[in-house]
Structures are given as C-alpha cells and as structure tokens.
C-alpha cells in the first residue's frame, strides 16, 4: 500500500487523537501542529513506525508571529520518508517568554546544527541540545536578529544618512502599523 497524506494522517490521529491540530495540505504537503511538550513523542512515532518511517529531517527552523500571544514562536520540522518519497511538515508553537522546546538531536543527527541556527536567529532554547551556541552570527551578538521586534538594518553605524540609505521609508511603514 502506497503511503499517502491520508494514511499518514490516519496513523497519527489513531495514535495521538485530538492532541494534533491545524491539519492542512498547502501545495499537497501534509502539515499539522502539536503541543510543544509532545514534539519528541510525535517525532519518535514518525521515525519508528514501520509503515511511516520518516527518518530524514530535511529542515528545521522557526517563525516569529508577534501577534500570536502565548504562541509567538513556531518551530517547524520538515520530515522526509525516503523510501516512499513523501514529506510532511510538523510544527510546535511556544511562547516567546519561555521558548523551551525539547531537542531532537537524539533522534536526528542533522538537528544539531539546525537547532543551533534556530537558537542563533530566534532564541529558541532546545532542552537537551549538547552544544547550544551561536553558529552563524558573531559570538558577541546579544540579541536574536530574526525576531520581528529588531530591525533588519544595521544600527551600529551612525554616520549614515537615513534618507540616502532608504531607511526613512522603512521607519514610516513601522510607525503606521
């Protein structure tokens, strides 16, 4: 029996029931969310189950939704079943004030650097990560640059004329929000 989005969803609902939410299939890719405490259980099930076999973590990153109180940060896992060539997208949401999520490094080796990157840019604290330090940005950086409250423009240079560097427009857009 070929693995389809329907069979994957069926297996997951059978195992976890109402705990999984936000079912969607944008562009044919199965997407769902789970409470953050359950992320390892869901990943482990997807990994171990003999019919599912999602054993390749393609990508892992975060998204910041500042207007989503209590669930500002989404951590997104992209999983791939290489044998049946089927992918899915799995999200957990966490509050920005307590951004602690269990680390998937024990399950997927590839999670190591990707969790470091996610920590680097969004400040998600991966509990159980062996070496959670910055990976791409300079070590001295004291904030998480891809969180929405920080402007993308470099703030350290004071001798730049904002108008000449196209920053005035960006500021106006921000003030009007």
């Amino acid at each position, binding site marked *: 029996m070929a693995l389809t989005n329907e069979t994957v969803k069926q297996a997951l609902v059978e195992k976890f029931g109402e705990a999984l939410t936000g079912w969607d299939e944008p562009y044919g890719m199965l997407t769902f969310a789970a409470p953050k405490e359950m992320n390892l259980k869901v990943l482990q099930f997807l990994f171990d189950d003999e019919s599912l076999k999602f054993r390749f973590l393609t990508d892992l990153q975060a998204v910041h939704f500042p207007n989503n109180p209590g669930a500002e940060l989404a951590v997104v896992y992209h999983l791939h079943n290489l044998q049946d060539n089927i992918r899915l997208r799995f999200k957990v949401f966490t509050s920005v004030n307590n951004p602690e999520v269990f680390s998937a490094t024990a399950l997927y080796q590839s999670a190591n650097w990707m969790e470091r990157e996610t920590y680097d840019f969004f400040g998600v604290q991966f509990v159980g990560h062996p070496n959670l330090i910055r990976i791409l940005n300079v070590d001295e950086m004291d904030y998480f640059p891809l969180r929405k409250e920080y402007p993308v423009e470099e703030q*350290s240079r004071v001798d730049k004329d904002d108008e000449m560097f196209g920053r005035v427009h960006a500021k106006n857009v921000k003030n009007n929000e």
Partner: protein
Amino acid sequence: MPRPVQYNSKVKFEGIPEGYMGEGFMATNLEKVISLARKNSIWPLPFATSCCGIEFMATMASHYDIARFGSERVGFSPRQCDLLMVMGTIAKKMGPVLKQVYTQMAEPRWVIAVGACASSGGIFDSYSVLQGIDQVIPVDVYVPGCAPRPEAILDGLMRIQDLVNKEGLRRRHSEQYKELLNSYGIN
C-alpha cells in the same frame, strides 16, 4: 606574409628626483629616492570576498594590467605585502580575520577599500554585515562603485601611489599615527 610590427612608443618614465648630479654620481634626498622606489614596487595583497574580486582579476590580467604600475607581484602572504586590497562584502564574522591579516602586514602598509560594500556596507544594510571596513582597520583610499570598473581600481592604486610618494619616512613613528592605530585597538 609578415605582419606589421607595432612598437609601443608611449612609454612613460619616472622623473628623476631633484638633486645635484655630476659625472657618475648623484646627490639627492634619501626620502625622495625611497619614496620613488616604494611607490613603483607596491606589492598588493588581494582580500577578495565577492564580485569586486572579479573586477580585480580583470585589473590584474593583460588588458588592464596592474603590472604597469609596478604592482605585478600580487602576494598572498600578508607578511610580504604593502597594500591590502579589500574587495567585497565583509561580514561581521570576517571582521576579526581581516584585522588579523592587517596586523600581520609589516609597516609601512596601506589599505584600499574597493567597492561600496568594503567602503560602507553597500546594499547590505543588515545585522550581519560590517558597515565598512574602516570600522576595524584604517583605510587610505576608497574606490566607489558596485562593482567599480578596473579603471576605477587602477585609479585607486594611483592614489595610493601618490600617498606613498608623499609620505614622509618618519610618519609611521608619529604620535598621530600611533593614536590612529590605538583607536582601532592595533599596536
């Protein structure tokens, strides 16, 4: 059939410095002689990180030929070179590396920032990019452009030659110069 031979008759010679000359000798200012030698034998160290480096490759090649200015010997060891040519975007993480390369160069040393990114960060007005290399090392000449044409890079090199020519031999020992380096945390 033999091809007609073209000879380059537009050869430019460096002028002889002022001095007192006679049969088989010449007396002049040591500073002038040394400046003349330095100016026409600058060894560049290319620090090319992106597209401006491609323009520099054209500048080095036969058409534009940086060798015409006495700089044919492009060195890849900072310890041998006089002129650090920074070409391309310098990310913040690259900043300390650039500074280390600069400190490994022996005095006298000059720096040329080629292109908008090296000069000011250019279009990369972003948290990850150094907004001009003059935040980590002192710069002598800025070449604007994105990317500057080889002519512009050559013009920058000629400005460096002017600086080298006019620089007094004791400048690197001056308090002002030490202060400048101290302001960058280099000594």
